[in-house]
């Protein structure tokens, strides 16, 4: 069941999607964390962020909207609490990194370089409010490249860059990021959307727009993982609406090396265990020796 992400060998290809699993502690009653491929933590920034006003979530057809706004206590508190707790758990930890500026991203990484127990970073270049001319870093090749370059200089650990789907051509962004030395790509982050309450005439999120996640976006995510994995040579971590082992298989068939499970954790906190077991069964039932044989095995 092992898969390789850059220099990292994972027990299996099932990861947690950032922001949906905290740092794992909240799931300790439901999940054997040691049986995950890796824990990808919630987004961490240099300074504490308050996040957005409530309501922060709304339900949509086969999905949900969120505008949490990357609320987090800052990297120091993260090291003290989350990393310290994770130190006793035998699972690779990939820290999801947020920033308002290139220096912000790099600052988080530099602080974390002083810690053991961090296997790698997932750089989230798809937060909607950063200082690159009001545009997210992830929607422009040059900005995406700049962040990647700066982070690459800051670490030799696994460097994953997480892409946004809200672009005309995700392949261009992926190529730009790969060229700057990213070891792997994560996709997709949430899709921008909104919803309105027809009784009150108010938007359902206080910030009006938010990110859609869940099964509704799976077809978009699959399409992008397929496009990107055909265009780059680094491994791709696929995510977006994975609810079952079959969904995970779908992502691997279109080219993902590993998968991340997000919103599904809210619906069934044990879901990652079901997917780990289900993937093994899927392969076993079909005589597929290595789960990695699924990667890119779609017959087009």
């Amino acid at each position: 069941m092992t898969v390789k992400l850059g220099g990292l060998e994972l027990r299996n290809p099932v990861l947690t999607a950032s922001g949906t699993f905290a740092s794992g502690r909240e799931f300790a009653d439901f999940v054997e964390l040691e049986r995950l491929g890796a824990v990808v933590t919630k987004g961490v920034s240099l300074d504490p962020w308050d996040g957005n006003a409530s309501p922060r979530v709304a339900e949509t057809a086969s999905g949900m909207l969120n505008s949490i706004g990357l609320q987090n206590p800052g990297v120091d508190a993260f090291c003290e609490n989350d990393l310290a707790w994770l130190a006793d758990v035998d699972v690779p930890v990939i820290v999801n990194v947020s920033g308002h500026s290139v220096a912000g991203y790099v600052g988080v990484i530099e602080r974390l370089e002083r810690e053991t127990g961090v296997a790698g970073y997932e750089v989230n270049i798809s937060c909607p409010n950063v200082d690159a001319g009001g545009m997210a870093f992830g929607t422009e090749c040059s900005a995406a490249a700049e962040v990647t370059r700066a982070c690459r200089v800051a670490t030799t650990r696994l460097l994953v860059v997480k892409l946004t789907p809200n672009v005309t051509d995700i392949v261009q962004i992926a190529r730009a990021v790969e060229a700057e030395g990213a070891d792997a790509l994560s996709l997709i982050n949430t899709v921008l959307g909104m919803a309105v309450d027809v009784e009150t005439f108010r938007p359902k999120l206080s910030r009006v727009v938010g990110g859609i996640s869940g099964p509704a976006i799976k077809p978009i995510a699959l399409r992008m993982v397929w496009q990107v994995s055909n265009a780059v040579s680094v491994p791709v971590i696929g995510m977006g609406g994975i609810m079952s082992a079959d969904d995970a298989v779908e992502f691997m068939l279109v080219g993902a090396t590993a998968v991340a499970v997000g919103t599904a954790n809210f619906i069934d906190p044990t879901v990652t265990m079901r997917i780990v077991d289900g993937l093994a069964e899927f392969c076993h039932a079909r005589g597929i020796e290595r789960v990695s044989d699924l990667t890119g095995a779609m017959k087009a």
Partner: protein
Amino acid sequence: MRRCMGEESVWRPVNPALERISVVANERLAEGVGLVTLHAPRAAAGVLPGQFVHVRISRGTDFILRRPFSVHRVSGERIEILYQVLGVGTRALAEKVAGEEMDLVGPLGSGWRVCEGTARALLVAGGLGVAPLGMLAEELAGRGVAITVAIGAPREERVLARNLFERVARRVEIATDDGSCGLRGPVTGVCERLLSDGSFDIVYTCGPELMQRKVATRAAAVDIPCQVSLERLMACGIGACLSCVVRTVDGMKRACVDGPVFDAQQVLWDPTETPPEH
């Protein structure tokens, strides 16, 4: 402020789990209000007053999130949930019939805190706010606490769980908006009178947020500790998603794990809501 702040509660929570449950009965109590009895042995054995369960009502993907409901009562291996039909989830819940299976994650949340030495408690419920107070009343009565209950409702038909409270409380006062039962007017009026008349060790309240805020203000005015139970939209219910935050004097708290019950003085009430008149 006197007793029961920051002290340990007499109750200790158990760890939550994912539990398969089945509907034992589902009864319509009034227009848009029902009581569903669920076979949920693990939750029934471990749940504390004020805790909630996170129920997956639909297995399809038409609406995917769980729905949080307070445990209203426990009897044997069963839990009772008092619910109001508001949207797609509660509508689907109202349609469940005996034998149907669902699952829940629970018991969740902090629950009401009860300190050693509590002798007289005032419970103030607005509308569906009776839901998490039912089990509390029974448990307090079991501990010999003298209970007074004030229930507010729009009209007589919607005065819920009256029998339960009358069985265990020393006194039950009712207020309805249209005066069809008890006093005409808001339950906060009744609460104010009770607080100035009697003496209580603690006030527990649940209902619309503005009402809870008013109750808290009245309790603070007579220097009695007050616990409130706040509702927030909840995605995960277990502290991971940060969708349910409550602003408090100690920073952002999560209603699902740090609450839903909070000491009233901890809460920084939503500034966009009109403040209660004093």
